[in-house]
């Protein structure tokens, strides 16, 4: 029985003797592995990023948006026309008798606003809502205070602004107590929100929050004074979130006098948003990973091709080895090990390239390309497997060569 160390040593020296060819063959595996790792890593990174962004929106959140789930309805409630959701819907959902598992309700509307302070101008999203918004969206204040229910009732001209908006408008001056003009209307800044980063493409730190009533009377472009663009709700806790979801849906269906087939609104929970996002990124990952996988397959075929060439070039060597006592099994193993080494080396370099690519891509695209330890291990095992599988046919051809035919060939 030939020692394994000798088998590996012989394989390495054979590959080393044809260094350029070995490198080019490895390149196929290497590119395939790196591509698969990067696409899958990118998919996982995007998924994690979207999930954490959705979770950062608040906790136990339910979102009601105007829409239509009927296939013939087309877009309803879109654009600047009146939304199908109103402040009355929000008031109804806040009633503990109707939706006992809902802790807080925040009807919101938004519009793009031109902001002007004494020193600078800025454009931002202006949101009209109620004090519960702060709890539902899990926002804290960096300075000052949020507006009160009284201020909502009295349509007070007060505004709470995001930290980035504050910097843009007032630079280093404390914004609390300053005056800001929003679309020509004068508001007093009473608080600045603590930073929350960006979420799902919208910058949570660049916003202006005003009382819903003030918004409706002074800033809204909607034709209806009572319509809102969405209603954010907070469930009492995670366990009763699905109950809260059902209560909200049932109550709205009843008050809008529609069935779930003709509903003019959509109720989503954070969990359902995460699920949707996950399934979309999952499909994308699969698709991209599949394309990358094909390149890996091509790399494997390259290994097989080169091993076949190698066998026909080394007929004489194989014959000699057989004459000297190498059994067909030993010859087969010799070529399998050579192919396996090509595979695993390609895999190792491919994995390194994947890590390097991830490190380079992450700051460029702003999504963490996350390459996990199991994924790395799988990539290495797969590259070894591809090498060995690609080696099976060439190796058995080598093993079957008759020693006399092999020795005869010049």
């Amino acid at each position: 029985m030939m020692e394994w160390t000798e088998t590996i040593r012989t394989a390495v020296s054979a590959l080393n003797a044809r260094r350029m060819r070995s490198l080019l063959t490895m390149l196929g595996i290497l590119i395939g592995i790196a591509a698969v790792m990067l696409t899958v890593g990118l998919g996982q990174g995007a998924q994690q990023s979207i999930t954490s962004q959705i979770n950062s929106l608040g906790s136990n959140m339910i979102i009601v948006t105007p829409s239509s789930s009927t296939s013939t309805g087309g877009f309803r409630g879109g654009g600047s026309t009146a939304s199908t959701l109103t402040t009355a819907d929000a008031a109804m959902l806040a009633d503990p008798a109707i939706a006992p598992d809902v802790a807080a309700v925040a009807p919101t509307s938004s519009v793009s606003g031109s902001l002007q302070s004494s020193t600078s101008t800025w454009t931002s999203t202006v949101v009209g809502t109620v004090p519960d918004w702060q709890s539902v969206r899990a926002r804290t204040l960096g300075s000052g205070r949020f507006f009160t229910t009284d201020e909502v009732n009295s349509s007070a001209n007060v505004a709470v602004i995001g930290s980035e908006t504050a910097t843009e408008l007032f630079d280093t001056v404390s914004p609390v107590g300053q005056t800001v003009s929003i679309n020509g209307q004068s508001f007093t800044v009473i608080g600045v929100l603590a930073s929350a980063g960006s979420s799902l493409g919208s910058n949570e730190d660049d916003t202006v929050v005003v009382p819903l009533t003030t918004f409706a009377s002074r800033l809204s472009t909607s034709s209806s004074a009572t319509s809102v663009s969405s209603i954010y709700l907070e469930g009492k806790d995670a366990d009763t979130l699905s109950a809260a979801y059902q209560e909200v849906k049932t109550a709205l269906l009843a008050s809008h006098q529609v069935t779930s087939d003709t509903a003019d609104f959509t109720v989503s929970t954070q969990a359902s948003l995460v699920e949707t996002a996950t399934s979309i990124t999952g499909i994308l990952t699969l698709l991209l990973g599949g394309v990358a996988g094909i390149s890996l397959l091509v790399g494997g075929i390259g290994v097989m091709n080169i091993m076949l060439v190698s066998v026909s070039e080394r007929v004489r060597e194989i014959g000699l080895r057989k004459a000297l006592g190498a059994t067909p099994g030993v010859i087969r193993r010799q070529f399998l090990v050579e192919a396996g080494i090509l595979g695993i080396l390609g895999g190792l370099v491919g994995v390194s390239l994947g890590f390097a690519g991830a490190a380079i891509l992450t700051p460029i695209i702003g999504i963490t390309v996350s390459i996990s330890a199991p994924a790395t291990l799988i990539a290495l095992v797969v590259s070894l497997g591809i090498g060995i599988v690609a080696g099976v046919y060439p190796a058995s051809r080598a093993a079957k060569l008759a020693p006399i035919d092999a020795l005869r060939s010049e």
Partner: protein
Amino acid sequence: MSHQLNMQGVRKTYATGAVEVEALRGIDLQVEEGNYVAIMGPSGSGKSTLMHIIGCLDTPSAGTYELDGIDVSSMTEKSLAEVRNRKIGFVFQQFNLLPSLSALRNVELPLIYAGVNAAERKERARVALDRVGLADRVQHRPGELSGGQQQRVSVARALVTDPTLLLADEPTGALDSRSTKDILALFDELNDSGRTIVMITHEHDVAAHARRIVHIYDGLLTDSAPVAVAVR
């Protein structure tokens, strides 16, 4: 003396297309331990086929062949490989050394396939190279050695497993006259120390070194005259 090599009625038929060619048509050949046999014959006589069968590189279509008392005529490829490894040392006309390996590694090869450990392998390969007078060339690659030296490396490789039989196929065919003399002297020396040698050749002065000459013609042995000792 016991027969190290005993062939009875060995036939070998090749099917080339529709025609069957009978390369060997009933060979009876016995070689005793310590003998030195030259097999001579023109090309197409079945000389190479006989050498392949003696060397266990091929099996007879009919007849029996015992090597060192073991019937090898119907062995599997795997068993034949093991028999070749243990019992036969090959010396080829074209040396058949692996160009990328040092002389030492080339000589180690049969021991690698025998599963001998590295330390013992190295030691035995050194001894074998020393035996053929190449102790100072162990790290040279075949390309850095002369034809005669390369053939001596291949003799060392043939000897390293201490085989029953040294089988040489036109061992001087690719050598100049000086190297030829050199190698033949080495063979004489090996035979004098008890090594059994079978050599295929078509040169009379090379065959003259053997103790016995066997002629093959059209797949049959024609005579088998002992060589007069005076010729050696």
